[in-house]
């Protein structure tokens, strides 16, 4: 049988697979049979015309025997320095202290280089049980140290785990260097699991909420990418960045090809300051205002931001509303005021606000059709000023830029970098005739602050002896135990009515670290561990106020804290529910004239964490923490906390579980 190919050539119809098999068998036979005969030395006789009989077994050749019984030769080793060792040199040039990570095959070469070639120092590998925890640890660490950490994660599934924490860092303007291992070469990567875990472009997963990403294809390219990633993430607005790191590139040796590898020097980029004309116009408005208000969210990008804000506020005797993305302004200062002052303002300056619209407007979730009720909080003639570095770096997909707000003077610039020029301009712009009125304004705020202090304590006294324990009591019981220490609140008190912020005299940048940014639950516990890690080397005492819902997203980070000996006091605000969500279901039930079904729980079905109650003390103990609780009687709280504080002072983590009021 013959067939034609496209060029009409005729050739025998040979099955290629059978052809190759036949060649192989014939070759084997011709190679083995003569050797067998030669080896025996026996005379071979057989009938004329008949094939000689084949032996049922043949003796191995000298070469085969040597291969089977001798010591195998050492395999040829790769020549030259390892590519991942060079990567470690690049990483070390940036003085990165720690590398929280969950191990994975796609970065095995770099992992090996970090711990063996790099000596597991700068960065030190921190073993994490979840990639989300690793990124959140880096998030919290930065808020104390002001330096970014890097994390390594598996290219697809690991990065998928990490995404929510990266989104939180994006919304919270925090730099994290995310390196994802990825085996790009389909012809050489291992089949099966490593191929499931490879992708053409892993960075696509996080491109919407990272500031920059790259996929280096050579070692020199890696050096440039890594230093560039660090530099971009550390230029305001700070943001996470991503590098896809090819597994093959990590494992290859350094080939000089006639040129030497080099590590680019890191030189920080100056933060963008506001245009001077816009600064002068803002100063003119503020200096001539009768009721100026300063609203801040992430204005104090560094500790230096706090005294600058104090100077501006005192110059104008303008109240400061701290929305709490960072510790911006001393809460003890007479100009630290609640958001209600916004309604009285004739000029408002918003510094690094995440949501200007909601600062000057209200949205009340009480409309019949779910649209809510919108109300302006301000007079229509109120002048608005904004300085915000995020205006320089807006992306389209995720809606963290919030609703559009018309602003009279808007500077796409870093607020902290702009404050010195603004302060100078305000000094020049204040009319002499206004100085007495400004002083009088300050006196009124001093009086208001004193009155507010009394009201706060009166409110704290409510339900003082209640069980479950009031969140005010919880904060009040902790304070005397830490007040004489250099303390740092590393977890957010937002879910407990801000009682720590209201009762503890917060003045330094590490007294309050803000929240997750993107409100992704599961941030608080790992971020607190990261912040406590940064506090450890500074000898500070870390206190983490911890909600139960957040804890259960990835509690494994407690093991990381114990394993790496991170001292931190975690006090559970255990209200046994997702209280943020309770009223959503209740609200819709009311709107539809239906009684919310509780099932066997305390809140609408799906919003409680009860039946069974989670024993957080046992959970913590199982991971190497000192722990106590659940504490339900408020009289037992103080003595238990005292014991826990002593444990933390000895360098260990401790947890006290407290059954609390909802908020």
């Amino acid at each position, binding site marked *: 049988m013959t067939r034609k190919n496209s060029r009409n050539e005729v050739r025998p119809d040979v099955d290629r697979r059978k052809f190759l098999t036949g060649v192989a068998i014939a070759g084997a036979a011709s190679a083995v049979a003569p050797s067998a005969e030669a080896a025996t030395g026996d005379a071979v006789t057989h009938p004329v015309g008949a094939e000689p009989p084949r032996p049922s077994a043949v003796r191995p050749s000298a070469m085969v025997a040597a291969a089977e019984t001798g010591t195998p030769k050492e395999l040829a080793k790769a020549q030259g320095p390892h590519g991942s060792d060079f990567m470690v040199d690049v990483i070390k040039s940036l003085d990165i202290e720690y590398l929280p990570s969950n191990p994975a095959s796609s970065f095995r070469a770099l992992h090996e280089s970090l711990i063996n070639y790099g000596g597991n120092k700068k960065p030190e590998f921190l073993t994490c049980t979840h990639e989300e925890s690793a990124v959140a640890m880096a998030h919290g660490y930065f808020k104390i140290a002001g330096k970014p950490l890097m994390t390594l994660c598996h290219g697809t599934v690991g990065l998928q785990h990490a995404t929510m924490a990266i989104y939180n860092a994006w919304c919270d303007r925090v730099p994290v260097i995310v390196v994802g291992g990825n085996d790009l070469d389909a012809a050489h990567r291992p089949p099966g699991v490593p191929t499931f875990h490879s992708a053409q472009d892993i960075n696509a997963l996080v491109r919407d909420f990272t500031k920059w990403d790259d996929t280096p294809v050579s070692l020199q390219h890696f050096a440039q990418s890594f230093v560039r990633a660090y530099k971009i993430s550390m230029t305001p607005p700070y943001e996470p960045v991503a590098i896809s790191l090819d597994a093959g590139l990590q494992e290859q040796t350094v080939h000089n090809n006639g040129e030497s590898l080099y590590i680019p020097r890191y030189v920080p980029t100056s933060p963008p300051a506001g245009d001077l004309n816009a600064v002068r116009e803002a100063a003119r408005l503020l200096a001539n205002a009768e009721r100026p208000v300063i609203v801040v969210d992430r204005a104090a990008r560094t500790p230096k931001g706090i005294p600058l804000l104090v100077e501006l506020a005192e110059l104008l005797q303008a109240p400061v509303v701290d929305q709490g993305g960072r510790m911006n302004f001393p809460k003890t200062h007479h100009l630290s005021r609640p958001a209600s002052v916004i309604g009285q303002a004739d000029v408002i300056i918003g510094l690094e606000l995440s949501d200007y619209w909601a600062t000057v407007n209200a949205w009340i979730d*009480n409309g019949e059709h779910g649209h809510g009720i919108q109300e302006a909080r301000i007079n229509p003639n109120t002048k608005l000023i904004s300085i915000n570095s995020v205006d320089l770096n807006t992306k389209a997909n995720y809606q963290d830029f919030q609703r559009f707000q018309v602003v009279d003077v808007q500077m796409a610039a870093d607020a902290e970098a702009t404050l010195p020029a603004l302060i100078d301009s305000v000094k020049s712009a204040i009319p002499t005739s206004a100085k007495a009125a400004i002083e009088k304004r300050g006196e009124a705020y001093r009086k208001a602050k004193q009155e507010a202090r009394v009201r706060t304590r009166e409110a704290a*006294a409510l339900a003082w002896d209640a069980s479950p324990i009031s969140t005010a009591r919880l904060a009040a019981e902790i304070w005397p135990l830490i007040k004489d220490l250099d303390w740092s609140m590393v977890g957010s008190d937002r879910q407990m009515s801000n009682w720590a912020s209201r009762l503890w005299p917060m003045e330094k940048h590490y007294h309050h670290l803000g929240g997750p940014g993107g409100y992704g639950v599961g941030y608080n516990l790992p971020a607190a561990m990261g912040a406590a890690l940064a506090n450890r080397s500074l000898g500070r005492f870390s206190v983490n106020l911890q909600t139960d819902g957040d804890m259960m997203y990835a509690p494994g980070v407690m093991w990381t804290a114990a394993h790496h000996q991170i001292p931190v006091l975690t006090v559970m605000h255990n209200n046994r529910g997702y*209280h943020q969500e309770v009223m959503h279901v209740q609200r819709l039930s009311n709107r539809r004239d239906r009684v919310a079904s509780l099932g066997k729980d305390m809140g609408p079905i799906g919003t409680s964490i009860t039946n069974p109650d989670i024993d957080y003390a046992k959970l913590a103990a199982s991971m190497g923490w000192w722990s106590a609780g659940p504490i339900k009687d408020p009289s037992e709280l103080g003595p238990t906390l005292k014991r826990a504080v002593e444990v933390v002072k000895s360098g260990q983590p401790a947890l006290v579980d407290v059954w609390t*009021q909802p908020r």
Partner: protein
Amino acid sequence: MRINVVRAGLASVVAAGFMFGSGAAFAASAEKGKALFMKNGCWQCHGTQGQGSVATSGGKTLAPDPLPLETFISFVRTTNRAMPPYREAILSNEDLTDIHAYLSSIPKPADYKTIQLLNE
């Protein structure tokens, strides 16, 4: 627990005899009111003792000294603020009266000046 029983008794006396449109007298029960306060999720925003929260009730408290009963019921029915309105179909006047009795039974807190921890 003993204190709660005493409070409940006092509140029942205070609220007893409230008249509804039907003309029937209704004896309010603080004990029932407490159960309704929990069952209907009031405590989730207002705390088990009506102490309120800056996060969920704008810092407003329900107790001690709750609003007068009629004002209280009117607010619950018609609120257009953060709290959703509760119509009679899901929370009756009788239930609200019991809840009001419970709130009325909650005693005033101690003066904060007498609490050492609030004067540190």
